C-alpha cells in the first residue's frame, strides 16, 4: 500500500538527487567511477581508533559489516574516507552502504568506487562524509557490503546425500588504508560444524586466535596495525544448503493505465554454485531421501512472497509451463511456490520465467494533474532461508505510450546502480512507442528485497487518448479504402 508521507519525502529526494534523476532527452551515463592518478594512495589523514569487523556467512553470500571509529589526524577538515578492496573483490562486492552508528539522523553519505590504476590489485571505495570532519574530530561509521560468489566448496564434488562444506577466505586484520589502533574480527557461521579454520598467534590474554563460541569465531582484539596490513585466514564450515546464484535477472514492470494493471515478469538465470555431484544423479536415492526430507544442497523449492493482491501468476521455462507450482493469494498474502523441474544440484543450471499481474491502484498514485508516481519493489526474488545473490539485475519499467519527464529514485544502495536510461519501445499497437526506463544494477542480494523503486512521470490526457484514436482511425481507414476499392470497376467489359 502507498505511504503518503513517504511520497512527500520522496519528492524531496527526487528534486535533491539530480544525479540519479534521468530525463527522457538526456540519459546521462552513469558517472559513479571517476578517474584518479595511477599512483594513487589515499592521503593518510585518518586513523581508525577502534574497529569491529563482522563477517556473516549464514547465507550463501558473505555479508561484511565494518563499524569503525575514525579520527581526523590531519590539520585540515577532511571528508573523504577510502576503503581498499582487491580487484577480484571489487567485481563481487555489492550493496555498499554507510551509516553513522551513533546518530542515525545523519544522512548523505556518498559511497562510490574510484577507478585507480585498473591493472593494480588494489582498488578503493570512497566514502564522502556529509560534513567534513574537523581535525581531531571523531565519527563512527557503519559500513556494510556483500560479497557474491564468495565461497568455494571443499570437497568440490560430493555424494548426493553428503554434507556440503564451504571455504571462505578473508583477512583477520580488517583491510584498511589507515592505521588501526584497536580492532577485532568476528566471523558468524551458520552452524557450529567448523572443521577447519586458520589459527594465528594471539596477543593479550588469549593463547591463540580465534576464540570459538558456538557458531562464532572471534579474531582479536589486536593491537595497532599499520595501514594496509593483512593476515590471510580461511574458514571451512558446513553449509548443506543450495548456493543459489542468479547470474542474470531481467525484471519487467509494465504499467497500463487503460487496464488499471501492472504486469510483472521476471526472467532468472539461476545456478547452484555449491559442490558438484561426485557420481551421477541417482533417482532411487533421491526419491527415498524425500521421505525423510533431510538437509540437502540441491535446490528443491523456492518461495516468492509477492505483494498482497497479486494475481494470475505463472511459471514457465524455455519449453513451456512448469506444472509444479502453487500460488496462494488472499487478503493477507500472495505466495508463489515453485519447484524446478528437477532438483538443482551444485553446478547445475535452471533458467526460468515467472510473472504475475497486480492492480495498479496499489502501486500507482496520481500526484498532480498529469504527474504519476509509481512505487514498486526493486527486487522481488525468492525469499529463501539460505539467501540468493544476484549478479546482474536489469529492471525495465515500461510506462504507457507518451509518458515523459521520467525520474526515478530508489532506496537501494546507490553504488549498486551501474546504468540507467530512458528509451522508446514499440509493442502492442503502439505508434510512437512506450517510454521505457531501464535500470541496471549488479551484485544485489535478497536482503535488499524490500528496497523501493519510485518512478515519477508525466502522462497527459492527450497521450491517454492516443491509442483508441489511432485504432479507430486505422479501422475507419481500412473500411473506407475497402469501400473505395469495391467501387472501382476492374472488368474489361460490362455485360
Amino acid at each position, binding site marked *: 500500500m502507498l505511504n503518503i508521507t513517504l511520497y512527500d519525502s520522496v519528492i524531496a529526494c527526487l528534486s535533491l538527487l539530480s544525479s540519479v534523476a534521468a530525463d527522457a532527452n538526456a540519459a546521462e551515463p552513469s558517472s559513479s567511477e571517476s578517474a584518479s592518478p595511477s599512483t594513487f594512495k589515499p592521503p593518510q589523514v585518518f586513523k581508525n581508533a577502534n574497529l569491529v569487523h563482522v563477517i556473516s556467512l549464514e547465507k550463501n553470500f558473505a555479508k561484511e559489516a565494518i563499524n569503525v571509529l575514525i579520527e581526523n589526524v590531519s590539520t585540515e577538515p577532511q571528508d573523504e574516507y577510502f576503503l581498499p578492496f582487491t580487484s577480484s573483490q571489487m567485481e563481487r562486492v555489492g550493496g555498499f552502504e554507510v551509516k553513522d552508528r551513533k546518530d542515525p539522523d545523519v544522512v548523505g553519505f556518498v559511497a562510490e568506487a574510484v577507478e585507480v590504476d585498473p591493472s593494480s590489485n588494489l582498488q578503493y571505495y570512497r566514502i564522502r562524509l556529509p560534513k567534513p570532519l574537523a581535525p581531531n574530530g571523531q565519527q563512527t561509521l557503519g559500513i556494510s557490503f556483500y560479497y557474491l560468489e564468495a565461497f568455494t566448496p571443499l570437497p568440490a564434488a560430493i555424494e548426493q546425500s553428503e554434507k556440503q562444506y564451504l571455504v571462505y577466505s578473508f583477512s583477520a586484520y580488517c583491510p584498511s588504508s589507515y592505521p588501526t589502533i584497536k580492532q577485532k574480527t568476528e566471523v558468524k557461521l551458520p552452524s557450529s560444524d567448523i572443521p577447519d579454520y586458520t589459527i594465528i598467534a594471539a596477543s593479550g590474554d588469549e593463547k591463540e586466535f580465534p576464540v570459538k563460541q558456538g557458531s562464532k569465531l572471534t579474531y582479536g582484539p589486536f593491537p595497532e596495525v599499520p595501514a594496509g596490513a593483512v593476515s590471510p585466514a580461511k574458514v571451512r564450515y558446513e553449509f548443506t544448503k543450495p548456493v543459489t546464484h542468479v547470474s542474470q535477472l531481467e525484471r519487467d514492470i509494465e504499467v497500463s493505465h487503460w487496464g488499471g494493471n501492472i504486469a510483472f515478469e521476471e526472467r532468472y538465470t539461476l545456478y547452484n554454485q555449491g559442490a558438484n555431484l561426485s*557420481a*551421477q*544423479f*541417482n*533417482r*532411487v536415492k533421491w*526419491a527415498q531421501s524425500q521421505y525423510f526430507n533431510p538437509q540437502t544442497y540441491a535446490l528443491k523449492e523456492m518461495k516468492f512472497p509477492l505483494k498482497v493482491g497479486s494475481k494470475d501468476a505463472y511459471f514457465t*521455462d*524455455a*519449453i*513451456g*509451463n*512448469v*506444472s*509444479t507450482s502453487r500460488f496462494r493469494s488472499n487478503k493477507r498474502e500472495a505466495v508463489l511456490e515453485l519447484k524446478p*523441474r*528437477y532438483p538443482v544440484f551444485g*553446478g*547445475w*543450471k*535452471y*533458467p526460468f520465467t515467472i510473472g504475475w499481474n497486480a492492480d495498479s491502484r496499489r502501486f500507482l498514485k496520481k500526484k498532480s494533474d498529469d504527474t504519476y508516481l509509481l512505487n514498486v519493489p526493486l527486487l522481488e526474488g525468492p525469499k529463501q532461508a539460505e539467501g540468493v545473490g544476484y549478479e546482474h539485475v536489469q529492471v525495465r519499467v515500461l510506462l504507457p505510450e507518451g509518458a515523459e519527464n521520467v525520474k526515478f529514485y530508489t532506496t537501494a544502495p546507490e553504488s549498486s546502480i551501474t546504468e540507467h536510461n530512458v528509451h522508446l519501445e*514499440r*509493442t*502492442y*499497437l*503502439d*505508434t510512437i512507442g512506450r517510454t521505457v526506463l531501464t535500470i541496471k544494477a549488479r551484485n544485489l542480494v535478497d536482503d535488499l528485497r524490500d528496497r523501493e523503486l519510485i518512478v515519477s512521470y508525466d502522462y497527459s490526457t492527450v497521450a491517454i487518448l492516443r491509442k483508441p484514436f489511432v485504432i479507430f482511425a486505422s479501422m475507419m481507414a481500412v473500411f473506407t479504402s475497402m469501400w473505395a476499392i469495391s467501387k472501382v470497376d476492374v472488368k474489361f467489359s460490362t455485360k
Partner: protein
Amino acid sequence: MAVATTASSGPVDLLINVGKNQSTKTLLRVIILCFIAGAAIASRLFSVIRFESIIHEFDPWFNFRATKYLVANGFYDFWDWFDDRTWHPLGRVTGGTLYPGLMVTSGVIYHLLRALTVPVDIRNICVLLAPACSGLTAFATYLLTNEMTTSSSAGLLAAAFMGIAPGYISRSVAGSYDNEAIAIFLLVFTFYLWIKALKLGSVLWGALCALFYGYMVASWGGYAFITCLVPLHAFVLICMGRFSMRLYVSYTTWYALGTLASMQIPFVGFLPVRTSEHMPALGIFGFLQLVAFLEYVRSAIPSRQFQTFLYVALGGIFGLSLLGLVGLTAGGYIAPWSGRFYSLWDTGYAKIHIPIIASVSEHQPTAWPAFFFDLNMLIWLFPAGVYLCFQKLEDEHVFIIVYALFGSYFAGVMVRLMLTLTPVVCVAAAIAVSQLLDTYLVARSPEVPDTEEEASDGHAKKASKQGGLRASSQPVVGIYNVVGKGFIAGAMVLYLLIFVQHCTWVTSNAYSSPSVVLASRMPDGSQHIIDDYREAYQWLRQNTREDAKIMSWWDYGYQIGGMADRPTLVDNNTWNNTHIATVGKAMASREEVSYPIMRQHEVDYVLVVFGGLLGYSGDDINKFLWMVRIAEGIWPDEVKERDYFTPRGEYRVDSEASETMKNSLMYKMSYYNYGSLFPPGQAQDRVRGARLPEQGPVLNTLEEAYTSENWIIRIYKVKDLDNVGRDHASAASFEKGHKKKKASKKRGPRVLRVD
C-alpha cells in the same frame, strides 16, 4: 432450418420472410459461416485450455524448430539450412528436404503481426495455426459444396460437418503444428478452384487453381493426391465422352502452371517429370492435346477418312508414348513407384520390405470402427450423397464420385489417409442431408402447385404435379403428411445433435492430448500432470554440453532437437534407414557390441523411454521389436528377431526372457537399478504385468545420468575409455573388489610351437 419445423408462429414467419431478401440472406450466411468457423476453432482448443499452449507429439516439434529458425535467420538462410544437429555425423540438408509452406505461412503471419506492432510469440502462432486454418477449411468446403448443388443449405451443412468432423480434427487441434494443418484447407480450396475452372473453362480460375496447387505442393507431401485425382477426373470425363474446350482450357492451364510452380520447391524439384507418381498428370496432359487435335481434325475432314486416321494416329501415339515411358523408366530417367506407394496397393508389402514404414502406427490399415469413430453418421450418409451425385451427374458430380471412390480406398489402406477422405464425406453427406431436409422441412405441402411452379424448373414441376395428384387422392399419407415430415425432420435433427455430441466427445477424449504432457487424476479428482518428458529434456538442455550427442530411438529425435536442443543420431525424418538400423543394432545388441558403435558415433548420452513404473505403454520395450526388425534388415547375421522371443515364442521381460533379450542394451537400460525401488524380489513392470528377475541387469559401459520423476525417461552417460586400458567389464569388477580371473586360465596350456 430446424427452427422452422418446431413452430410457425409470428417471429419465425418474420424470420423466414426476412430471409427471403437477398442481402439479408447473404448476411445470414456470413454470420452462420462465422459461427461455424468459430465452432471449428473452439472445438480444437481443448488441449490449450486443459494443458497449455504447447506443441504436440513428435513431428510438430521439428516444424516448430524450423519455424523458429526461419524467423530468426530469414528466408534465404532457411532455404539453405544445413542442420548439423541432427543425424550426427551425417547432418541433414533441411532446407532442401522439407515442405516449407507451413513454416513460411507462420513466418509471414509473425512478421505481419510484428509490422502491426503486435508482438505475438511465435509458439502461439504455431499452436493456433491449425485451428485458424480449420475455419478456412470450413469456408472452402462451403464453396466446394455450393458448386455441387443448388440447395442453399448443403454448403452450410458441409461447412459445419467439415468444421467438427473428428477425421479432420485429429490432425488439426491446437498445437498439432503439422503440414496437414494448412494442407487440408489448400486441398479443399484447390479442388474448389478446379471445379470452378472446369465449369467456366476459365484461364483465370485455372491459374488460381495452379497457384493454390503450388502452395499445396509447398506444404504437404500429400499433394500427390491432387496430382493424381485431377487427371483422373479429366480422364473419366473424356471416357464418358464429355471432352470439352472447358476441360481442355482448365486442365492445360492447371497442369502447365501448377507443374512449374511445384518445381520451385527444392524438395520436389524435378520429381514431376521424373517419378511415376506424377506420370498420370503428364499422360493426361498429352492425351488431352491428342483428343483436342482429333476433335479439330474431325471437324476438318470427312468422317470415313477420320476413322482410319483415328486408329492409326491413336494406336501409334499410344504405343510410342508407352514405349517411351518404359524405356525411360528402364534407363533410370523416371523413378519407378516408391515403397510407400506400393504399400498403398499391397498392405502387407511394407511389413516385409520396409519395416520402418510399417513401424509407424499411422501407416497401418484402418480398422473399420475407425470410420465410424472419425466420421460418425457421415459415413452412412456418404453413399447417399454419392448416389445423389449420380442422379445429377454434371462434370463436377463426376469429380465427387471419383474422389469418393479413391478417397475411400486409400482411407481403408492407411489410417492416416482418413484425412483426405473427410472432405468428400462431408460434401456428400451434406448433399444428402440437405436433400432430406429440403424435402421434409418445407412445412407447406405443394398442394397449391401454381405458386410453386413459377419458380421451379420443368423437372420439379412434374414432381410437384404428381405430388399434387397423390395429395388430392390421399391427403394424410406419404411425404406430404405433417407427421411423416415431422418424424423425418425430427430424426434428422436428433442425428445432427448426436453427431455434434460425438464429435465433441471424440475431440475431447481422443485427439486433444499433447502426448508430451500426460494427465492423470489425483484421488480427490484434481488433475495431476505428469511432465517427465519435459523434465528430462530440460535437464539435458541445461546441464549437458551444448554439443553432447544424444542417442535415442528415432521417435524422440524431433523432441530432443526441439526441447532439449541437443544433436541427435536419428530423428523422425527417417531418411537414412541404415543409420536408424545402426541405432537399432546398438540398442538390440550386447554391451560389448554396442559400446564400439556408440564410441564411433561420438554418443555422449543415451535416452530411453520406460513406462514400467507408471504403466505407460508407449515405451521403448514395447517398440523394441521394431528396432530389432529394422536392424535385422541390415545385419541379418548379427541381429535375429527370433532370439528375442522365448523358445515358446513369447515376448517376455521377466526371468523367463531369452538370454539375448536380457543382455540387450535396451533391456538393461530400461530395468537398470529398477529393482532397488521395490522390496527384494518384488520389482514389477506395470506395463507388461511381469515380475522382474531378482537380480537386476548390470551395466558396465554406461552409467545412469538422470532418471525423471516417474521413470518415464532414463538418460545414461556413455563412459569414457578406461584410464588404464582395461575393458569396462573388468574395470567394474575390479572396482567391486572381485579378484581378477587368472589370465593363464584363459590362455590355456602353453604349447610348443611346432612347424
